[in-house]
């Protein structure tokens, strides 16, 4: 895992190979950073879930060799960015699949536990940005 930056100043960047075995490492690392940044247990649990879903999307639905995430604590919210998190066209079409659907639940789960999920363009890099307010 390659890491740089600071969660409270610009963001902490984490890069791992896009392999299923790396998803757990990423999950644990973001949970540790979030806890150290003052996130409560419930939010730490939700972030672990979000990291896992988004990392899985990169592994299963993109050609990317790496998973790149940025975790940042701002004064009023926590922000998690992920590069190339799958086919990100038309987030508005994502809704919770019916109870009989097996797959395709990842992004709707992310939307359910975060306050905001949006696509941002950052210097030509397409990212999925998830935010959750600090209560």
């Amino acid at each position, binding site marked *: 895992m390659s890491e740089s930056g600071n969660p409270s100043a610009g963001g902490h960047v984490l890069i791992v190979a896009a392999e*299923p075995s790396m*998803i*757990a490492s990423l*999950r644990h690392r973001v949970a540790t950073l979030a806890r150290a940044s003052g996130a409560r247990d419930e939010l730490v649990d939700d972030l672990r*879930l979000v990291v896992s879903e988004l990392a*899985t999307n990169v592994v299963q639905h993109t050609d990317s060799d790496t998973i790149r995430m940025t975790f940042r604590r701002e004064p009023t919210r926590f922000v998690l960015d992920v590069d190339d998190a799958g086919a990100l066209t038309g987030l508005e079409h994502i809704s919770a699949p019916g109870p*009989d659907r097996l797959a395709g639940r990842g992004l709707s*789960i992310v939307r359910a536990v975060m306050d905001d999920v949006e696509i941002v363009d950052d210097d030509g890099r397409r990212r999925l940005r998830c935010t959750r307010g600090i209560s």
Partner: protein
Amino acid sequence: MSDPLPRLVVSVHGSTVTVAGDIDAHSCPELEAALEPLPGAGDVHVDLAGVGFMDSSGLRVLIGAHQHAAAADRRLVIGRPSGSVLRLIEVSGLSGHLHVDDTT
């Protein structure tokens, strides 16, 4: 360097499947192998007391097994889920669909 992260341990006794560890895209094939075909007879109990984390990869396996059980006139009962697993089931809109037993 040894792997410090918890690995998934799945054991089957009769129709009870006991799982410990984290269930994600990497580890869920082990759970899938224990539930396909469904073990034992009657209701299948999946004891998740030892599972601290699960994501939609695990949910996919459980929904599939739930459907196989229903088709065979059996039930898949998810036992002793942790708070985070319950929340996953809830935010996925599956609380009223999957059989969850958190009483024991």
